[in-house]
Structure formats: C-alpha cells, structure tokens
C-alpha cells in the first residue's frame, strides 16, 4: 500500500504541468500503468479524491490505461503474455526473454481548462 505517496506524486506532476500552461482547471488525468507495476487503481482514486481537494485538480477524472505484460523470446522471436505458471517462451521453452511492456508507470497527459485570454475592451 504505497498509493498515498504515489498519488501525491501524481498530483504534484499534474499541478506543475497545468500551472506551466496557465490552466485554470484539470479535467482529466491520463495514467499509464503496466501490469507489473504494483499500483491499485481504486486506492489511487481513493487518495486522489482526498488530496486533490482545494486544488485545481479537484474533481478531475482519473483515466487508467493498463498495459499487459508482453515478453519476447530472444531465441525464436515469439512475443507472448506470460501465464501464472511459467515465464518461459511457450513456443521454444527458452528462458532468454526480453520484457517489452508491463513496467510502465507514468502520467501520459492531462486534459485542462484554460483561463480565458484577457482581451482589452474594444
């Protein structure tokens, strides 16, 4: 359960980018989480609702894009999703594998509302 620390980081990153763009409100947060990153969506959502209060990110929708683990065999080139009983290549049983996907954990983008441009009265 390290989702509190993680959610604080997510908020810090989002606010920094939103302020740099002079956004008045953050509407959506697009997070990418690999299968092998041990992050629980529901816990992040729980902490998010609490810690984003009184910030421009309050009420922003958290959108999680989960990426399954994808392994590639270095022997025969086969790509596959590991099952729970083995990590070896299902085709040639080699243990020489490369992890292509599954360890991601980043904020991909934020959807923001921009402050209306100040226009001087005509």
């Amino acid at each position, binding site marked *: 359960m*390290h989702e509190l620390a993680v959610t604080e980081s997510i908020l810090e990153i989002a606010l920094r980018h939103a302020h740099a763009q002079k956004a008045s409100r953050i509407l959506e947060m697009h997070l990418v989480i690999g299968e092998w990153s041990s992050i629980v969506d529901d816990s992040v959502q729980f902490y998010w609702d609490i810690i984003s209060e009184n910030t421009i990110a309050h009420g922003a929708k958290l959108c999680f894009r989960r990426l399954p683990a994808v392994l590639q065999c270095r022997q025969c080139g086969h790509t596959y999703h590991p099952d729970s009983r083995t990590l070896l290549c299902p085709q040639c049983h080699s243990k020489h594998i490369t*992890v292509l996907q599954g360890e991601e954990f*980043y904020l991909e983008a934020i959807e923001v509302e921009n402050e209306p441009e100040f226009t001087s009265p005509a």
Partner: protein
Amino acid sequence: MSSKIPVVEKILSANDRLALENRARFDAAGVFAINVMASPGAGKTSLIEQTIRALQGKLRIGMINGDIATSFDADRAAAAGAAAVQINTGGDCHLDAVMLQSALGQLDLSSLDLVIIENVGNLICPAEFKLGAHKNVLVASIPEGDDKPYKYPGMYRGVHAVVINKIDLLPYVPFRMDFFKEGIEALNPGVVQFELSCRTGEGLQAWFNWLVSEARKAALR
C-alpha cells in the same frame, strides 16, 4: 476551452532524482551501499547481523533500518557492532529516497566503508522506490515457496543480487530450486546469486567475499 497537455513523466521521478543525490553522497564518501529487501521473516536481519559480525575489522559498517514501528532490528545491528540508525516509517510499507536522505544525516559516512539499508519487509512496494544504493539485494527464503519470482516479477527484476536463505530447510520443505531459478534467470539474466543458511553458516563466505570486493571497488571510485 479545454485542451490536452502531453506530460509523459514517470510518477516516481521526484523520488528517482533524490535517489541519485543519495547515490552521489555515497560515492563522494567512497562508501558501498546496499538496499536489502525481502518479505517479513526471510532473514534480512539475521543475514545483516552475521555480516556485521563476520566483517568486523575488515569493513566499517553502518546500518539503516526501516521498520513500521519498532527498533528491534536496529538494536540487533548495533549489538553486532554497527553504527545503526532507525527509521520508523509510521505505517509506510517501504523506504523512499526522502527517508533515506534524512537518515544519512545521522551517519558519518566518511568513517564507513559499507552501508546496509534494511528495507521494510514487503515484496511489493520497496521495488518501486529507488533509494540510491549501489546494489539492490533480495533475500528469498526456502519456506516462502518456489513460485515467488512468478508472483512478484517487479521485485525480482529490480535487484542486482538474490540471496536464497534457509537452504538447511530444503530437505523438509517442497521447493523446486530449478523452477525457482528458472524464474529468476528469465526475469533477471545473470543476476548474482547466493545460496546460504544464516543458521548453519553454510554458503555465507561467498556473500561476505562479494561485499568486500564490491566495497573495495566503491572505495576506488
């Protein structure tokens, strides 16, 4: 008007940056630092105790212990002869680079050769938070079962050395060493491995030798 801002920033990048600062402090002092992780009861503290005793006179050792509430483990390390600092995480399931940074202020790195950081007992969270140690070490133990690399791939991928403790229990516990090692090697090819028993002392010497040789390399950096 709404718009989408591309961010693409790793969530733990702030922690990663601080970990680099911690690493720089170790490097400046010529200290070799290891981050020892394991599930509760795998034998982290026993291994550290044995290490401190065995390397007395060879390496000057500091120990930083992360625990949820008690200081039992730091007390054991101090009794064994190390300069020990306790971090109580107050419920947090892992150490992070900030906690380590404040603990480092309590150790005189210039008088040490090796810093052993004992992380909170947990196979999930500590893998995500870099601390700045030179080597991440995972202590696995026979009674935990041979399926752990498959269940905790994140942990097994992020380490530089795996210590397989409690090998004296192999005759009594169903544990397929081949299956276990197959998982480790698939996830983390070429990772340094030690098979040992803190209780009988079997296999400990290879671990001690590795620490001494890595600490010598760090001192020359």
